[in-house]
């Protein structure tokens, strides 16, 4: 594993002496649905401030792993830590206690997630989508939340669409609102689940630009993607998964141009 220790250029956010501690640490993660084992022992580390890309064929378990990080999926084995804290459980001695729903919800506040199919709230305008969680969950007052939301919408280039309902926006615009919505909670980690897979090709670029901008600001990002160009340019680490295991990992430029493993080679030959 060739290590790139350089931090993304001068980000002011989330640089609180945590560069030693990994943002996400997975140790032997197992996950099955009934008798089907989807994750068969995943070990990996996402360092604070890096852009971590997960690639692999569909059904390889990369989305499932991503959903385990904010406990949308329960793991069946192994240990998963976010910012040093166990996900979904509390450890006392050698015993694990399941967290209550409210405790799980509290931890999710700090982890933003962007979905393949956007999942904007259709009964709310773009602005209402963005202020919903800060107001309802954090208790931020509406005026402040609205001001911050407008800044975020500006940042994703959609300040003029604040009053539009999701159905009145294109897919790319919806996804950028979804990114603004996740950022409104000031997360320390952002999860992207194939954020451009449901978009028309000409709309992909706008979303990737927003993500690139976010990466440059120093946000820790875990990105499940099929955009090899993005992974190569923006990614700091890359993992290739297949059949529920990590096949190959390292610097994206190395893995993508010079894959070592035969399965990685055959996958890349199909998508590149």
């Amino acid at each position, binding site marked *: 594993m060739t290590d790139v220790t350089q931090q993304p250029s001068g980000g002011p956010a989330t640089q609180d002496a945590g560069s030693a501690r990994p943002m996400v640490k997975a140790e032997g993660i197992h996950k099955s649905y009934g008798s089907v084992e989807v994750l068969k022992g995943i070990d990996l580390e996402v360092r604070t401030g890096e852009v971590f890309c997960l690639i692999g064929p569909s059904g390889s378990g990369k989305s499932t792993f991503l959903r385990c990080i*904010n406990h*949308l999926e329960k793991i069946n084995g192994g240990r998963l830590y976010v910012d040093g804290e166990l996900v979904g459980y509390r450890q006392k001695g050698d015993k694990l206690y399941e967290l209550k*729903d*409210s405790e799980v*919800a*509290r*931890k*999710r*506040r*700090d*982890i*933003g*997630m962007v*979905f393949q*199919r956007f*999942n*904007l*709230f*259709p*009964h*709310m305008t773009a602005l209402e989508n963005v202020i*919903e*969680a800060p107001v*309802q*969950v954090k208790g931020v007052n509406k005026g402040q939340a609205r001001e911050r939301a407008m800044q975020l919408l500006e940042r994703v280039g959609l300040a003029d669409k604040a009053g539009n*309902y*999701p*159905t*009145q926006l294109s897919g790319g615009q919806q996804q950028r609102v*979804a990114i603004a*919505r*996740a950022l409104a*909670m000031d997360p320390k980690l952002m999860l992207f689940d194939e954020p451009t897979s449901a978009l028309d090709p000409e709309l992909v670029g706008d979303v990737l630009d927003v993500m690139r901008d976010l990466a440059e600001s120093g946000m820790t990002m875990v990105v499940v993607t099929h955009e090899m160009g993005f992974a190569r340019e923006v990614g700091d680490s890359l993992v290739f998964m297949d059949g529920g295991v990590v096949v190959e990992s390292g610097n994206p430029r190395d893995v993508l141009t010079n894959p070592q493993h035969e399965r990685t080679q055959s996958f890349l030959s199909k998508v590149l």
Partner: protein
Amino acid sequence: MTVDVSKTDGPADPTPAAGPQAIKAIPVRHPGRYVSAAIALGLLGAIIYAFAQGNINWGAIPEYFFDDRIIDGVLNTLLLTVLSMVIGVVGGIVLAVMRLSKNPVTSSIAWFYIWFFRGTPVLVQLFVWFNLGLVFEYINLGPIYKDYWSVFMTPLLTALLGLGLNEAAYMAEICRAGLLSVDEGQAEAAHALGMSHSRTLRRIVIPQAMRVIVPPTGNEVINMLKTTSLVSAVQFADLFKQAQDIGQNASATVEMFFLAAAWYLIMTTLFSIGQYYLERYYARGSTRTLPPTPIQRFKAAVLPARRPKGVTV
């Protein structure tokens, strides 16, 4: 009778030289429509004639139409409908959430409730509530309230419990269908933002479920309005009971039934109009432009020059 039409009826009538858009053609005739309209009008006339010839004192209807007792009954019927529906909707949402809960105890309780109240006739339920004094002689809420059951159980309370609790069982199924209709990704997105289960339901899932819940609920309201006529059996002075009483005293029983029917028809019509606007409200965000209201459509047709932007007829 030549009308501009945009469809062509084949090359039968070649009238060239017209402008590119203005086709003047004889429209297809629909003689069947005139025939069927004539038959329908004839039948209607026959029915009206038969009723007018019958041994019915029609004059009694306008005489009592705005009688104080009738108006009182109308208000009571409306009150009972609204309150029963409130109990039904709130109870229905609670039961639906209980049934969909992961907790096996709450979901079984909800299942049992729905099984019982949906499985027995509402008239029987009304009588049971009315006569529950046979089981509980007193109602005793410690220092707050104590009285005989028969005193406590007024006709209004009996009617409310009987109709409302029964309605909750039906509403539960409607609400459950509504909650299930909301895409799972919505709850996931809300959870990912750190929203609790109950807040997700209240802020995200239920508002979207309403679009599916409202139309059948409108149907339930109209059904409820008519079902309230059963409560005359437990001595509640609703429209039907008042009409019956007047009818017996003034020996105009059937006339008062017609009068009541007319009032029910007026009330259900008003509710239907309200339902239309409620559905429109909950369609926000599900369609790009809302359909025009009948008033807007009327304006658009009558005043074409001032047609508002974004409204398509």
